[in-house]
């Protein structure tokens, strides 16, 4: 038995040596900069992790996220370390959809630098671009606050994960949900039904624990079932090339995706007790 333990340690160390020597090789060829220009993984920001480390990260980030749900980086790490199978599923769905396939090849990113804000502000009310901008302003969020993917060991899957994170705000707009606790839980239920990511499922189950009775009732009677059904019925939301659809009307897009309009209108100023 100890022989196996010793061998396992030896393998771990060898793997570590291989990883670090690979890292040294690539790093020696690049100049300075801790993160930007020099990366020794499959994509900028990639960090190699062994299965043990992934398990520890999943457990640790889960606990940290539960203790402080505002630690977005921990939620992100939890998603990356537990979402391998779901990401493969999502990627295959995107490949089978013509628009999704275009996204996978062109790899668009939603950032303030790539959005033409003045043009979007000039679009008519009710269009996707205008409503998205209104959502960003009302809730004081920005698309640049999404953490980069670090622990996914496949370049394409890392992009799928990044796209999922960047599309999250657009989902809020599509579903008409603000960023308070109730709105976030509703979006999480939708995402759990849509993507099957374990992190979303965990958030969907544990999020309601922080809601007061009135909101819980609203969640379970109207918002929740609506979110779940929309999630199941909807087309894959990652396969939509939002950047080319800013002028499209929101109602139009909802119909195309099989999403019903929200049963309850929640306002952005409705900050619930956490």
């Amino acid at each position, binding site marked *: 038995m100890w022989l196996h333990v010793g061998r396992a*340690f030896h393998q*771990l*160390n060898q793997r*570590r040596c291989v990883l*670090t020597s690979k*890292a*040294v090789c690539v*790093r*020696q*060829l*690049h*100049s*300075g900069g*801790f*993160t930007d220009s020099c990366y020794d993984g499959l994509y900028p920001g990639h*960090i190699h992790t*062994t299965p*043990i*480390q992934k398990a*520890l*990260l999943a457990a*640790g*980030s889960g*606990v*940290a996220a539960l203790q402080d749900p505002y*630690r977005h*980086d*921990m939620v992100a*790490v939890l998603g990356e370390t537990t979402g391998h199978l779901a990401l493969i599923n999502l990627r295959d769905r995107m490949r089978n959809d013509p628009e999704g396939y275009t996204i996978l090849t062109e790899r668009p990113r939603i950032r303030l630098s790539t959005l033409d804000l003045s043009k979007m502000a000039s679009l008519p009310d009710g269009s996707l671009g205008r409503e998205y901008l209104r959502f960003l302003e009302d809730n004081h969020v920005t698309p640049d606050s999404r953490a980069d993917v*670090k622990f996914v060991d496949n370049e394409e899957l890392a992009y799928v994960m990044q796209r999922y994170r960047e599309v999250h705000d657009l989902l809020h707009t599509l579903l008409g949900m603000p960023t308070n606790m109730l709105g976030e839980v509703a979006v999480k239920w939708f995402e759990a039904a849509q993507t099957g990511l374990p992190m979303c499922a965990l958030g969907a189950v544990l999020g309601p624990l922080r809601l007061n009775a009135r909101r819980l009732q609203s969640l379970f009677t109207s918002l929740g079932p609506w979110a779940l059904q929309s999630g199941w019925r909807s087309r894959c939301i990652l396969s939509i090339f939002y950047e080319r659809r800013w002028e499209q009307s929101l109602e139009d897009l909802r119909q195309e995706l099989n999403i019903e309009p929200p049963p309850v209108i929640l306002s952005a100023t409705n900050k619930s007790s956490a």
Partner: protein
Amino acid sequence: MATSVRLLVRRAIRLSYRNTSVSAAGAAGRSACCWKPSPCRCFSDAAADRSTHFGFETVPETEKAKRVYKVFENVAQKYDVMNDAMSLGIHRVWKDMLLHAMHPQPGVRLLDVAGGTGDIAFRFLEYVRSQQERHSRRAARSMQTPSWQDISNSYTTEDEDVPKESRAVVCDINKEMLRVGKQKADSMGISAGLSWVVGDAEELPFDDDQFDIYTIAFGIRNVTRIDQALQEALRVLKPGGRFMCLEFSKVTNPVLAKLYDTYSFQMIPVLGEVIAGDWKSYQYLVESIRKFPDQEEFKRMIEDAGFYCVQYYNFTAGVVALHSGFKL
């Protein structure tokens, strides 16, 4: 895509040239470069001909200090929490053992370099204060039944009884770490005899022969030129002063070494990511421990700098070593 490959190839060949050529001053180095000057930023550090290690990475010497600064700037807020988590609280025992080995008496001046969040300085002040108390208690007890001669003597020699003031100076290159240390001092209510100075261990902002004790705890492996730091230590110490260095070192037992390696490389970056949100800084930490010389070699370096009676003590089977030397 082709241009970046060409740049990579050029850089690789240039690196191999750099290793074989004599390290010269910046201008000479640049003129020795065979490639025509291209507007490429990877040639801009031609002046740094010497390279050193940053964890397992090789970087020019000029860059190491900057990167170490950035690491500690990032981790300063969570530094103490992470120390407790990574060492399971044992780092407190190590620091207490340093103080016991030091056994400072009241009136001593301490310089704690790379003292950052002030752990050693606080312990020093506490130790000296309790020593002072013990002395005054002992004096009071022995003077319970004084003779008339003793009483008249004590009236004349009262000014000699002023408690000797010990002073601790915390010096660190990183302002963020000092800030955290100051906050800790304020919250603990410690202010007497404590000062905070920004300074580089390779070039201390103090005169010669100033301090009785020089300590550097878990800081010397981050210094770019360790020999320079040792020489500065020799300079600022008074004759008879003591140099004490607490640092991670080589574990002698091979089984424990394997366990320690596994724990370091598997657990610690994960802890860094979960608690401090910074994987890379803690990856640097465990790598820099591996690049530091072992107990015997470091002892030789200290002797070379000019210290006498250099000894080392292993703590926790060699995970940490305390090196001590005297300036005579």
